[in-house]
């Protein structure tokens, strides 16, 4: 493979990751890392370093729109970022302690969980039950309001189970720094079903947080010299263009079959990762 072909291949993987990511609401990392490591044979640490840069790109691109539309809850994001960023620092340091077999095993495990979670996020929180009172959430002023464009109504919401949100955020941050993913697959179900936030607020706030979380991880990988310009450039550009195109031109609603196909693909990649991990 020539350097031009290599760059084009990385760009193609990143473009796909950005498209799938924006359609299904997952960060591109879950596609970028296996794509680089399994298809192109890139060292897994370099793949994770480049993927973190890609996660920053997706999040930053999408976050501008979410902040403008008032979907993302800035207070909630900043509070949970204390946990995700701390986790990301620990994860990024740990990543260097593990060899690629261990990282493949953990990544395979994450993919198994992620394919299951694709269905969990479809479950809506039961809105008829009252939101349990949480003094900490009130003290931290986590309640909010957004204007739902689809129904034309203002939606007011309250948060609950702040400690659960913080604990899961810590784990999501750890996974992000360790494996180069956004961690939305862990945060969104917890924010929606556990903290009882509307699904749109959960997704938007989680996406906003990913940028800061991945920036912390990327900082560690950069300072260690594990961000390769030849990989990171097509990853950043590809993911950004893919995510922008995906969110502009394709409606999210009719993505049931894409979701199904992606789940099958994830199960296959999980199998490949675990196989490589054991070898």
């Amino acid at each position, binding site marked *: 493979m020539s350097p031009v072909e290599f760059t084009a291949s990385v760009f193609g993987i990143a473009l796909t990751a950005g498209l799938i990511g924006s359609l299904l609401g997952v960060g591109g990392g879950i596609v970028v890392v296996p794509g680089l490591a399994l298809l192109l044979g890139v*060292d897994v*640490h370099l793949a994770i370093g480049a993927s973190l840069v890609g996660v920053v*790109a997706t999040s930053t691109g999408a976050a*501008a729109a979410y902040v403008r539309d008032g979907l993302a809850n800035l207070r909630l994001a*900043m509070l949970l970022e204390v946990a995700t960023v701390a986790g990301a620092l620990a994860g990024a340091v740990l990543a260097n302690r593990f060899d690629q077999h261990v990282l493949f095993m953990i990544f395979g495990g994450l993919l198994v969980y992620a394919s299951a979670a694709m269905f969990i996020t479809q479950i809506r929180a039961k809105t008829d039950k009252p939101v349990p009172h949480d003094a900490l959430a009130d003290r931290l002023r986590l309640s909010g309001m957004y204007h739902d464009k689809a129904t034309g109504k203002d939606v007011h919401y309250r948060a609950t189970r702040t400690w659960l949100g913080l604990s899961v955020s810590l784990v999501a941050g750890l996974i992000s720094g360790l494996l180069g993913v956004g961690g939305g697959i862990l945060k969104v179900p917890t924010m929606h079903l556990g903290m009882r936030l509307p699904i749109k607020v959960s997704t938007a706030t989680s996406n906003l947080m990913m940028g800061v979380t991945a920036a912390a991880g990327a*900082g560690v990988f950069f300072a260690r*010299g594990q*961000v390769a310009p030849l990989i990171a450039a097509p990853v950043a550009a590809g993911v950004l263009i893919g995510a922008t195109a995906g969110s502009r031109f394709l409606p999210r609603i009719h993505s049931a079959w894409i979701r199904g196909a992606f789940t099958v693909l994830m199960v296959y990649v999980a199998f490949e990762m675990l196989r490589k991990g054991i070898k």
Partner: protein
Amino acid sequence: MSSPTPDQATNTHRIELLIGNLLRLGVIVSLTLVTLGTLVTFIGDRDRPDAASLDVLHLTQTRFPHTLTSVLREAAAFHGPGLVMLGILVLVATPVARVVAAVALFTAERDRIYIALTTVVLIMLVVSFFLGRVE
């Protein structure tokens, strides 16, 4: 803690819009630098990658420029990889700038809890750049 006054609410909204524009600007500047850097890398003979520069991507012990000064020096010399890395650093710095804006926002609102929380996040982000170096 009292609920925010209408004045504060518009102020918050203004800063939120500012944050949104800041994020977009960071992305545009970064993408421009990364694209320019890639073009410079492949056009011309000086920075063009060869088979060896691909081979090292499969090795665990490979290390790339990892200090601010080395990246700035390479970018100033108009080296392709240097321009790419500068673009990557701008990209990574964009969410950090968002946290700085959030510190300003909560300071304007005199919200002590959130001033403390955002400052902690900012400190950890700065630490991340040193953590990878001491290993």
